[in-house]
């Protein structure tokens, strides 16, 4: 399928020979150079009209031509959507991180019929961008479902083999997802796994059998790495909860809540201290689930963490990823809690499935991070304005809403994974073991 994506001009021009294309490209360059000269000369006098008529006629056929030329070489690139590129309102040290404009819907540039992106991915992209699907496990599971749907709807073209073409067909979908919201490490690892599985398909299988196998491998990934791993981690972590404990948790994590609910189901007597932070305040949902199960809860903001730390006996944190140098990537604020806990000598237990282990290494929290919507920092509980509500009008005010931060391994006591209970620094050993397995 070589249709152009999102192109406003409906009709494609007739294909031209290479020499003709070269000559025309040179003509455009000359015209642009002349236009620049004219602009420089006319700097004092306002003459913007002069260069534009020269530029316009060569420019019109150029994009269309550019499209057909690149079409022949590589699959059509999805137009980068909704990224804020102007430097106004950006912090210099974070300018390497992408900031997306949340006012434009992610599907703006997609056309109905000729899009290369499967509707399941379109839906998933919007869900991720609008924070409907949150949490590393949930996002990965949603991605697995979307990939399975894609595979079942996928029809391999006659001339191609499934094992080489499927990856190519999936690529624009993944690119689109990455542009809706930065991919979580769990999702990236699943994508790597799928690519390997697709490439391993033996060529003598029929299409339907191959598709079934792939869907089975997706299911297996979910079952082994998310579902069973979660159960195994819960078993190990519940052992660590004793009667009379006060356990501190941070915000909402599906895995940690599962552990606490399981511990309660085993009739352990403990309290939970829920630490929450702005702007997303997901700790409230943790409180709701815990109180519904009958676990006594306390609730504080992260500023009061030192105030409550004396009464806490253990700290349980969830990780979004474990980096190869032992740093724990978690929701922003995890590092602060790790620091305070280790200062007050409370054990910090991090729970992380092995599929979230990443080969990335970094020593600070800014290199690899995600910038969430800055306007969500303006949300107050009673819907009133804060003094910086008009921050976009003030050139000196910037809002930064980081999503992740990295906790140094010195601040973490133990990491519970489904294989074993490890120190943070054993991450590369697990990664190597996983690579050997694949």
């Amino acid at each position: 399928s070589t249709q152009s994506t999102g192109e406003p001009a409906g009709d494609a021009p007739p294909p031209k020979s290479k020499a003709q294309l070269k000559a025309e490209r040179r003509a455009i360059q000359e015209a642009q150079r002349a236009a620049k000269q004219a602009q420089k000369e006319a700097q004092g006098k306002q003459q913007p009209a002069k260069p534009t008529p020269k530029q316009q006629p060569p420019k019109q056929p150029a994009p269309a031509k550019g499209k057909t030329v690149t079409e022949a070489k590589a699959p059509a690139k999805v137009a980068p959507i909704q990224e804020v590129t102007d430097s106004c309102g950006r912090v210099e040290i974070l300018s390497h991180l992408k900031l997306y404009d949340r006012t434009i819907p992610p599907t703006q540039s997609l056309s109905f019929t000729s899009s290369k992106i499967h509707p399941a991915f379109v839906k998933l992209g919007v869900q991720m961008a609008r924070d409907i699907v949150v949490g590393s496990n949930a996002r990965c599971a949603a991605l697995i479902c979307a990939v399975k749907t894609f595979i079942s709807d996928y029809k391999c073209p006659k001339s191609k083999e499934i094992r080489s073409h499927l990856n190519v067909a999936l690529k624009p979908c993944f690119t689109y997802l990455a542009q809706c919201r930065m991919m979580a490490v769990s999702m990236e690892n699943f994508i790597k796994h799928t690519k390997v599985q697709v490439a391993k398909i033996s060529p003598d299988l029929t299409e339907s059998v191959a598709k079934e196998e792939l869907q089975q491998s997706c299911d297996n990934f979910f079952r082994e790495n998310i579902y069973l791993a979660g159960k195994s981690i819960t078993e190990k972590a519940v052992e660590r909860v004793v009667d009379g404990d006060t356990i501190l948790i941070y915000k909402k994590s599906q895995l940690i809540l599962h552990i606490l609910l399981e511990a309660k189901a085993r009739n352990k007597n403990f309290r939970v201290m829920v630490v929450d932070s702005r702007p997303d305040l997901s700790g409230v949902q943790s409180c709701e689930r815990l109180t519904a199960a009958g676990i006594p809860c306390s609730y504080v903001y992260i500023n009061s963490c030192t105030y409550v730390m004396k009464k806490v006996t253990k700290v349980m944190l969830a990780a979004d990823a474990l980096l190869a140098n032992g740093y724990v990537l978690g929701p922003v604020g995890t590092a602060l809690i790790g620091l305070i806990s280790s200062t007050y000598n409370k054990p910090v237990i991090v729970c992380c499935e092995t599929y979230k282990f990443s080969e990335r290494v970094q020593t600070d929290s800014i290199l690899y991070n995600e910038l969430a919507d800055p306007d969500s920092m303006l949300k107050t509980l009673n819907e009133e304005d804060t003094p910086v509500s008009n921050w976009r009008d003030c050139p000196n005010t910037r809002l930064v809403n980081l999503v992740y931060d990295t906790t140094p391994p010195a601040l973490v006591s133990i990491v519970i994974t489904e294989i074993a209970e490890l120190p943070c620094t054993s991450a590369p050993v697990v990664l190597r073991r996983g690579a050997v397995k694949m």
Partner: protein
Amino acid sequence: QWYQRRVTGERRSYVSVVKTINVFRDLICTAEWVTGRELIKIVKCYCKYLPLSQSNETDVSNVVRRILKIIREESVGPEATNSADGISAFFKTDIKPCNLGRSDLQDNILNSIVELLAELDTSKSNIVNMALEHIHSNERILTYGHSNTIRDFLLYGRKARDFEVIVCESGPSLKGHKMAAELSEGGIKTTVIADSAAFAIIHAVNKVIIGTHTIMADGALRATNGVHQVAMAAKFFSVPVIVCAPLYKLSPTHLCSYDPDAFNKVIGPEKMLNFSNANLHSKVLISNPDFDYVPSDLIELFITNTGGHAPSYLYRIISELYHPEDYDLDNMCVEDVEDEMAT
């Protein structure tokens, strides 16, 4: 009652301190006393009326201690104070009667109080003028929440240096937003971050400059909720923490206990959890403490109206500002107790 009407409800510490001094000045003029000791007794008696549950209680108590010190010094007489060396004056607990009559003594005391008021008046500008000694160009400074002193300090620095400020939102009250708005109006590039991001961003910051509610006798702070963890993160990355505060915030009290409830004051949680979550309110224990204790080993420097001091030097300043008998304002001095027992 007249005191309460005039001073309660004042949030800005400087204004309440000035009002307190004026109130006590009136007291000195109008009350019946003959010797310095009687005056001290009267002043301590009126301390009961100090609204100690107010947020500015420590500033007010400190200023009362300064007034008591003035009264003691004037009562002892100018010769004694001039000849007395710092150390021996420190150990002088009794007040020798001197020859000054009430009117002369009153005049001396009132003059000293006027000097005290002048000192307080210039305390903020003294701190602010030191901004250029502490900020270099192209710095990134982290600050927490809102403080008038810090805001003026940074705005003064902006006149000569180009730097960037990162402000932590400061929890449920979101005072950091107000600070950011004021700083950016003054032309400083300001970034607002959530408190949870303090650790993430602090390695890229050159220094942390904060204000405080009270400075305790050993150099520890009683500051806004959340400052302790920012100071801990700064220590982890060896980023210096500088505290700017005028000396009337220096209180000769120590941390009475490590129990957080004894030290702190908890305010209503409506800013944390909406009343629309009322079903949670009844089942969940919500804490919204107002203050934070920051131990002195996390602080690098104090910038006060008398200059910059290390936390270890504060004990000396306390001995100059306050008299040991006044550290506990409820206390009566030994002779008074004997008098009471005799009658």
